[in-house]
């Protein structure tokens, strides 16, 4: 919008080009990017706060790169033993790894070092949290549907790599918590049947902890994963531009357009400004709130452990699973299989990530929906999907809480063992309850929408009929509201192909189809479908009669001005 207006204002007359113009022309003659840039600065993005959640993650990632580079200038990724002689009194003279000593140096002897460390760590926490929130938005609104399934998978990969990089960063300083975390990682690897010990030995370069792990994790943390993240972030954004951004339904917004503001200058200003806000919030947190006080933990020592040994929040679910898992083990040919570690530590994360990656395809298979979608679903209009995520969030929350069971026990004077037992039951009982509750809630909201569409909104005006009965007057909702409520497709339950078992012979794949039909029926069961044209007309007949009645009143009774159709500014009654 801004760009075009600027173009119009400058008439095409011979003018001495400015210096900047000359340079731009020189460059454009050689790479010819102007045409591409011109198209993209006018790219339109829709406006909604929930579309900015991914930006938090993007900007946190930028902050991570900036502060991370600063930290690498002083961090020494080595497990060679040195004796500490720095500024922190309580550890002077203690033998420790160079990694830990240099982290102490960054914290106490490098100007601004502790601030940078803390900003880096806080922005890592926010990076992954923002990815989760962004992913939840995409899920709730159905933005992962065709044609965006691949971008959903790229997002899933980004999340997985983000978590992995968070864990490697947590392990680098070689403090007591780092080592405790790595010890658990070592245990998880060793719990894999047959190859576990080999995997662990390969990773640690021998028996845990060895003296290779920090330098290996360093390369993974600063080169390998950030490189992958950067490439995938680029792909994620490219696909976003290619697919165009989804938008909420509304008047003038269709599956074929995007209503919003152009990249330049509105979105550049908004997004650029948001970067500074994210940086500001993260810097404030880094400056004011202690995070990972490694000097208190001390250098890693396998003989030590501390109360409050927890991973960063994004590993809390894995920690919780591990904490509430019963101690199941079995012996096979003289070898112990540690189900108590293998199931929660290796199998569960594998299942969760596979499910996350495949979800768009699973849903499309059940619903049979192969259409393109650029308009978002309101969460209530996909009750089963919404309820499924709320159930998953409940499970996540419970496991997360289980990961902090000791702090729950201390803070709320609870019995640690009871918490464990409660969680063991709650993770199976809680999510189904949340599912049913959310689904019914969504359907209630759908019914309310239908009510508003067909019979209008409640004006709050009570009418007394000549017979003496009372009723509330309903008036039709406005066109924008009606458009938003009706801008969705009718659900189509998958039907079994007719004649598949016409002679009682099961057709090929009929079991699969039966399962699919069952699931599809379950998926859409009890959903409220948007009214048909006839229903709308009939409904509007009611409200139109009401409206006519209302218009015919020569002297509307006092109080009727509050029906939402009258301007009540400066109304005397309002002041009482």
């Amino acid at each position, binding site marked *: 919008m801004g760009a075009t207006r600027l173009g119009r204002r400058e008439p095409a007359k011979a003018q001495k080009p400015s210096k900047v113009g000359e340079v731009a022309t020189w460059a454009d003659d050689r790479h010819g990017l102007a045409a591409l840039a011109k198209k993209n600065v006018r790219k339109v993005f829709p406006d909604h706060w929930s579309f900015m959640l991914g930006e938090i993650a993007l900007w946190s990632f930028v902050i991570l790169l900036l502060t991370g580079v600063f930290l690498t200038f002083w961090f020494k990724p080595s497990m060679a033993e040195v004796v500490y002689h720095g500024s922190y009194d309580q550890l002077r003279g203690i033998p420790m790894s160079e990694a830990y000593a240099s982290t102490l140096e960054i914290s106490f002897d490098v100007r601004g070092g502790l601030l940078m460390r803390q900003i880096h760590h806080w922005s890592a926490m926010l990076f992954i949290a923002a990815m989760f929130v962004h992913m939840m938005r995409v899920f709730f609104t159905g933005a992962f549907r065709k044609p965006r399934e691949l971008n959903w998978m790229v997002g899933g990969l980004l999340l997985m790599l983000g978590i992995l990089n968070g864990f490697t960063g947590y392990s680098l300083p070689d403090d007591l918590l780092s080592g405790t975390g790595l010890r658990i990682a070592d245990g998880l690897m060793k719990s894999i049947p047959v190859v576990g010990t080999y995997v662990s030995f390969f990773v640690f370069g021998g028996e845990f902890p060895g003296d290779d792990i920090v330098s290996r994790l360093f390369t993974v943390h600063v080169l390998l994963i950030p490189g992958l993240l950067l490439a995938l972030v680029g792909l994620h954004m490219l696909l976003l531009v290619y697919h165009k951004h989804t938008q909420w339904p509304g008047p003038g917004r269709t599956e074929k357009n995007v209503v919003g*503001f152009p990249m330049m200058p509105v979105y550049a200003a908004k997004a650029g400004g*948001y970067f500074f806000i994210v940086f500001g919030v993260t810097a404030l947190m880094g400056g004011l709130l202690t995070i990972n006080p490694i000097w208190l933990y*001390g250098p890693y020592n396998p003989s*030590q452990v501390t109360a409050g040994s927890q991973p960063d*929040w994004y590993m809390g679910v894995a920690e919780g699973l591990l904490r509430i898992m019963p101690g199941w083990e079995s012996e096979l040919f003289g070898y112990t299989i540690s189900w108590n570690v293998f199931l929660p530590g290796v199998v569960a994360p594998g299942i969760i990530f596979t499910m996350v990656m495949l979800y768009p395809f699973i849903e499309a298979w059940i619903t049979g929906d192969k259409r393109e979608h650029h308009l978002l679903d309101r969460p209530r209009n996909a009750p089963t999907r919404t309820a499924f995520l709320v159930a998953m969030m409940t499970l996540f929350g419970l496991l997360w809480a289980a990961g*902090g069971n*000791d*702090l729950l026990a201390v803070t709320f004077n609870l019995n640690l063992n009871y918490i464990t037992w409660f969680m063991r039951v709650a993770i199976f009982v809680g999510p189904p309850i949340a599912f049913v509750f959310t689904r019914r809630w969504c359907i209630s909201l759908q019914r309310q929408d239908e009510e508003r569409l067909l019979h209008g909104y409640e004006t709050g005006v009570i009418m007394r009929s000549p017979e003496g009965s009372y009723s509330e007057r309903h008036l039709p909702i406005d066109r924008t509201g009606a458009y938003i409520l009706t801008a969705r497709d009718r659900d189509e339950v998958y039907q079994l192909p007719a004649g598949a078992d016409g002679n009682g012979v099961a057709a090929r794949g009929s079991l699969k189809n039966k399962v699919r039909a069952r699931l599809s029926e379950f998926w859409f069961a009890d959903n409220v479908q948007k009214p048909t044209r006839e229903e709308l007309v009939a409904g509007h007949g009611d409200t139109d009669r009401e409206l006519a009645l209302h218009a015919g009143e020569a002297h509307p009774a006092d109080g009727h001005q509050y029906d939402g159709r009258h301007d009540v500014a400066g109304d005397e009654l309002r002041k009482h």
Partner: protein
Amino acid sequence: MLLTALLLTGGAYAVLSPASAQDDLAADEALVDRGRQLFLVGCASCHGTNAEGIVTSDGTQYGPSLVGVGAAAVDFQVGTGRMPLAEPGVQAPDKPAQYDDEETRALAAYVASLGPGPAIPEAEKYDLEGVDEEGVVRGGQFFLTNCTACHNFAGAGGALPEGKYAPPLQGTDPKYIYEAMLTGPQQMPVFSDEVITPEDKEDVIAYIQSLEENPSYGGFALGSYGPVAEGMFAWLLGIGALVGFAVWIAANSVRSKKRTKA
């Protein structure tokens, strides 16, 4: 039977243990007598009239025997208000002391007179005067190895099974930390003078004190509870604020400005 066994154990301990002898508290008969009077009123209902302990019908201890626990244990339990118990529970919480210093001394003298046990440590054992910088560092290593598993890396306390807990150490009188190591109250193991020498005990206390004297280098310490508290702040404060800003930015768009003008 139990009493005999306990007395025998106590007696044997008195003979065999070279370090602890009957301290002079128990020698003061008037004090012991006053302590006994106080004991019969305030303690005997659980610990028995002769401090022999009371066993319940299902075999658990209603109140344990106090024969041989020593004056240090009494000084710790009564001095920190843990005893007398307000109500039975898995663990005695600390609360304002119910007895004054003189009464606590009398109770300690009475219990010390029942059998030999650790005496109340002299003030020079925990006044930290002889502790140099190296001592603090050494104390830190003892602390990290022996104490943090329950009391947390900053002495902020932690959970134990079945509703029990390791209390926070921040702000605890050095004398009580010393006595706790010496007597192993409640769930705590005993760190006798043979396990951790009196000098090392003083170093541990010096380390805990030095942490309290350190400025909070990284800013507000979030209770020193570790990553769980950090995660809570990341979500509630960080994501909360950033989503708030996103709503603000989206609400203040070009369109909504135009709308207000129109």
